[in-house]
């Protein structure tokens, strides 16, 4: 019995074959990963080790650089970035989920026009709009205020989020809504109990994209904030300008700024990988 089971398992394994594409894939993967690896490695070096040529692969790791980053006041920028990213993503989902629903499962009049309008807002380069934006933000007194970034990031991510979530909503068969309404469910109840559980992987994926875009946004932040509302990307650039020779401490700061996005991706991973499984309907 055991023998047959084992041989059954063994038979399932495919014989390893050498494939040149595998080599290409590995080279590409290492090429992408190496800079990140180097950044993290450098973050744990002393400045002396970081500046050697050829670079040192083996050294005594230290947390000194992270301490230095905290001493130089990463805290407020980190909090600003967290607030702008979290709040804008929350607003995007609050506005975007109903919009995506209305543009997919409950098609409203002029759906195509609405979708095109959303897309068209992404056609103008942000650089072209920065002057009027600056004037407006300045006039309503939100210069160097984190809420200015919250509003702009929400506006920036909303079209992408609506388009993305709409495609997930379109995967849901409309008959489910009809079935729920015949079962006696109100629209709100059927959306909450039937539709949202199905599209939650899509919503998680959309939220992650919004988080990444908002977290890494630099142009608005550098133009509309100064000291109080400074975000991580702006803070990092300050490092380069002021302390250009100090690779290790810059790497430590960069590693810390990359960390939240990686954590978000880690948490969303489950949902993302699970994907949309509508086995029961199709």
């Amino acid at each position, binding site marked *: 019995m055991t023998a047959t089971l084992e041989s059954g398992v063994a038979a399932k394994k495919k014989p390893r074959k050498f494939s040149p594409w595998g080599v290409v894939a590995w080279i590409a993967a290492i090429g992408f990963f190496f800079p990140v690896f180097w950044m993290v490695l450098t973050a744990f070096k002393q400045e002396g080790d970081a500046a050697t040529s050829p670079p040192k692969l083996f050294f005594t790791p230290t947390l000194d650089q992270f301490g230095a980053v905290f001493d130089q006041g990463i805290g407020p920028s980190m909090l600003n970035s967290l607030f702008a990213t979290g709040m804008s993503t929350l607003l995007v989902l609050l506005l975007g989920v109903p919009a995506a629903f209305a543009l997919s499962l409950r098609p409203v009049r002029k759906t195509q026009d609405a979708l095109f309008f959303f897309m068209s807002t992404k056609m103008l380069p942000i650089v072209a709009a920065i002057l009027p934006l600056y004037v407006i933000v300045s006039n309503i007194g939100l210069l160097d205020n984190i809420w200015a970034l919250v509003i702009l990031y929400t506006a920036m991510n909303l079209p992408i989020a609506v388009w993305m979530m709409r495609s997930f909503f379109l995967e849901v068969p409309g008959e489910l809504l009809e079935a729920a*309404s015949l079962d006696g469910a109100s629209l709100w109840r059927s959306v909450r109990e039937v539709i949202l559980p199905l599209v939650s992987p899509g919503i998680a994926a959309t939220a992650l994209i919004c988080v990444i875009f908002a977290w890494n946004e630099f142009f608005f932040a550098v133009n509309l904030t100064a000291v109080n509302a400074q975000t991580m990307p702006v803070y990092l650039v300050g490092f380069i300008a002021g302390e250009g020779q100090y690779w290790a401490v810059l790497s430590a700061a960069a590693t810390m700024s990359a960390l939240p996005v990686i954590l978000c991706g880690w948490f969303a991973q489950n949902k993302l990988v699970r994907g949309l499984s509508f086995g029961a309907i199709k």
Partner: protein
Amino acid sequence: MASITYKNASCIYEGSDKLAVDSLNLDIKDGEFIVLVGPSGSGKSTALRMLAGLEDIDEGAIEIGGKDMTGVPSKDRDIAMVFQNYALYPNKTVAENMGFALKLRGVPADERRRKVEEAAKILDLTEYLDRKPAKLSGGQRQRVAMGRAIVREPQVFCMDEPLSNLDAKLRVQTRTQIAALQRRLGTTTVYVTHDQVEAMTMGDRVAVLKFGKLQQFASPSELYDRPANAFVAGFIGSPAMNLITVPVTADGVQVGSSPMKLEREQRGLIGDLKEVTVGVRPESLELTTDPDGIEVTVDLVEDLGSEAYVYTHASGGVELVARSNPRTAPKLGDTVRLSRNADAVVHLFHPVSGERLG
């Protein structure tokens, strides 16, 4: 349980100038099993969805139990529907799927569980109650969809081609189960299908639709014996009735090179029309050696084992299908003669309007 009345009910889709359902009138008695049948685009599904509240009633009215349903949202109509794709909630278990309507109505959990288990027993689903729909076979999903409908004990069942996703054998099996279940529960049921065999075997009465218009609403046997027009005649029965439009002679009609006599009474119905559409079912025609038979050439023989259907054409291109004994069936290209058997019924229809004569 309730009666249903369609009163000149019409539906028009946005952006279309044709009525999807054109002033439909149906009087459905309490507890009846009604089948709406027709080809695709006949408006049968739309008519059902109007009843369920999923399409607007643009003109006329639909009454359930004497109450006008115009403007009443589907959630307040107390109708259960079985969809073609079942529309089971993928994130809920079989038990949750079946109990969702009861939960929404605030039925306490233990009573809900009892009712769901009862329905599951009837449908042989007891061991699957904790599974998700994705882990079920097509036939089991179909039964869950049925279970979701019967648990609620609604006034009306609506079924929109519920068997079309099953394989042929399971379809025949489930067909009889659904019909038996409906007789047992006595719930008024409206069933939509494009399959005339389903319509004939399941319905107490069958409504045949075409282009949104009701063609005939009658019992299966009446549809078969006295079709109201050439469309119903050709739609009901398999293989389809032979419908040939042929010239009229003094004592009958001319089929290809052979004359075909009609009874005096029937000849009288034709009056002074130059042409008439004659309908004869394949099972009413047989091969014969009688020189008075219609001379035809064999195009194809379909051997079903218990019987064979001989597809033929007479000179002039008139096509006729006849039933035959598979052991003595002719071969392709043979010239044979066909005659009507003893209890053959000849249907006559107007050559232009298709309406039944007599």
